[in-house]
């Protein structure tokens, strides 16, 4: 597995797209800090971008990589290698290289502007951490979709739809249900609803870290009580872990049964 991981990783490291992605974050970081000159404010703007963009990039790269390397994968399948090894190796290689672009791309500009000496280093680390998690989650989901669809166009379509659902439509449905069931106590419900969407969960985790929780009144207090504690933090990160593990299990199952 390590060999395949290595191969995937180096293959991606050499590809133009990884560089483009890295340079994009690098520029973004510098431009943000140049315009804002305020680390705290820059992190809030960055959050908006990370929460929306890393899933999108993860999804698109995941689907693209699967379809592009399909022939090579088939070649590998002819060798005496376990199927799960091949796909997990590719998955980890891809996710790690994308996360690396993110961490380095944003880390370098913020290091330049003295993140180390500022009090918000912890917020920044949370942000990067959440970004990496989202990359892993959405690459895994994208791989699932790609494995289930032989048709490239269909696969792409479903993948984008999946991203759209998580990033936008879910929130819309959430908002509507909150407005409709206005008369009922909703804080428990909203807590559950956020936990079941990795994008929302990441957003709330970062928002609470940035102390916007005070804006949220009673609901915020409920959230702070949950996410603010060590238990809540562990619970939410393990929820993100589950969001990686379940798609991976499905990848393994699907791959072992698939007729290539």
């Amino acid at each position: 597995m390590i060999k395949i991981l290595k191969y995937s990783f180096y293959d991606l490291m050499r590809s133009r797209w990884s560089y483009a992605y890295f340079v994009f974050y690098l520029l973004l970081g510098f431009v943000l800090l140049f315009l804002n000159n305020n680390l705290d404010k820059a992190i809030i703007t960055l959050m908006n971008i990370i929460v929306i963009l890393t899933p999108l990039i993860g999804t698109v790269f995941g689907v693209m990589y699967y379809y592009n390397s399909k022939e090579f994968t088939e070649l590998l399948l002819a060798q005496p290698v376990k199927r799960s090894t091949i796909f997990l190796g590719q998955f980890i290689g891809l996710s790690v290289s994308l996360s690396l672009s993110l961490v380095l791309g944003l880390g370098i500009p913020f290091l330049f502007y003295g993140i180390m000496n500022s009090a918000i280093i912890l917020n920044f680390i949370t942000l990067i951490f959440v970004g990496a998690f989202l990359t892993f989650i959405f690459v895994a989901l994208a791989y699932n979709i790609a494995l289930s669809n032989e048709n490239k166009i269909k696969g792409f379509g479903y993948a984008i739809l999946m991203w759209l659902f998580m990033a936008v439509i879910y929130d819309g449905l959430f908002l509507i249900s909150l407005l409709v069931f206005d008369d009922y106590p909703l804080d428990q419900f909203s807590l559950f609803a956020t936990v079941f969407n990795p994008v929302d969960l990441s957003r709330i985790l970062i928002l609470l870290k940035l102390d916007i929780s005070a804006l949220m009144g009673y609901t915020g207090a409920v959230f702070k009580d949950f996410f603010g504690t060590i238990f809540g933090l562990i619970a939410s990160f393990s929820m993100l872990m589950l969001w990686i593990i379940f798609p991976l299990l499905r990848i393994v199952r699907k791959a072992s049964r698939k007729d290539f």
Partner: protein
Amino acid sequence: MYRLILYIIGFLCPILSCFGQLTVCPECPINTVQSAVEKAEDGTHILIKKGVYLVNDLVIDKKIQIEGEPGAIIDGNEAGGIIIITSDSVHIRGLRIQNVGKSYIKDWAAIKLHKTKGFIIENNHFENVFFGIVVEKSKRGIIRNNTIHSVSESEHNSGNGIHLWHSKMIEIVGNNVSGQRDGIYLEFVDKSRIENNICSDNLRYGLHFMFSHEDEYINNTFMDNGAGVAVMFSKKIKMIRNTFIKNWGSSSYGLLLKEINDAEIKENLFEENTIGIHAEGTNRINYFNNNFVRNGWAVKVRGACFKNIFKQNNFLFNTFDISYQGNLNENQFDQNYWSSYTGYDLDKNGVGDIPYRPVKLFSYIVNRTPETIILLRSLFVDMINFSEKVSPIFTPDNLLDNNPMMREVR
């Protein structure tokens, strides 16, 4: 000749207070403050030298001056109130007064003034007091340059720093109040001036006043208090150049206005408060040249607000600029600078060509269902905000700033 000398003495006496100066020190013939006050007559100047003096419920009913040298400490031993002044024209300065007892039924204070005129309390340091200075039914007094500090744990067993009740024409200048329940509390206090005070880290409000009319609040700083400043049921108040910073918490705000009429709120700075101004039932208030920076809500206008004018204010990077309930009610927004304004200025006159709508759809939704706030900063919310901006359906469509400024108002 004798007459002239008598005149001179008569003239100088009030200045030099040659009616007698009494000195109190631990080794002197007079070694307690109580006996000094007993011996004193109107006009006596009592000098307290370095040392610790135990005093409880000492009543001052003569027109005397008490001055402390550095290191003069009056200690209440947490057994009750310390000084009670019932006479006019009492001056107290330079003392350190500490350890007032706590009570759930009496407002024990370091200095309590009852039905007096013309008092001056200045340059004192109050430490670990239940109530610091309590003024009841008094007139024309000055409370100046005092420091009041305690460590309060909860609202029900702590007192206010400076507490005024039923008084008139009091000046509260240059005091520093921290760690109390309310920093400065006024009830039924008219025509008073509160200037250059700093109220920080108080449990409840930095400044709290009710039923007080024609007062002025100038140049004060309110920082890190439980809930900033509350102004209720008052008329004709001027609030100028005050600073409200970091009053941050789930039910916190910079300035709470409730049932306020005809006030002037000018040139204040509201920075990093959960709610900058929370206005409810306010009429004819002029908000001019204020700065609202990085607040959760810059201004929250609740019901029954009529004829308020917001003019030439700066709204910079607030999560929500305005939250609004009900109809426009003759309130006006004009010539403000909004950092989230995205319009243009083709004729280069410094005023944006398209009006700005300060109430976003999301702010309207949050008003209706507070739980929806957890969708803050989600992409979906940005999208509905944008569509509402293009064609307003839910937000009051006449609530707009017709002349949004292109640059910050200086």
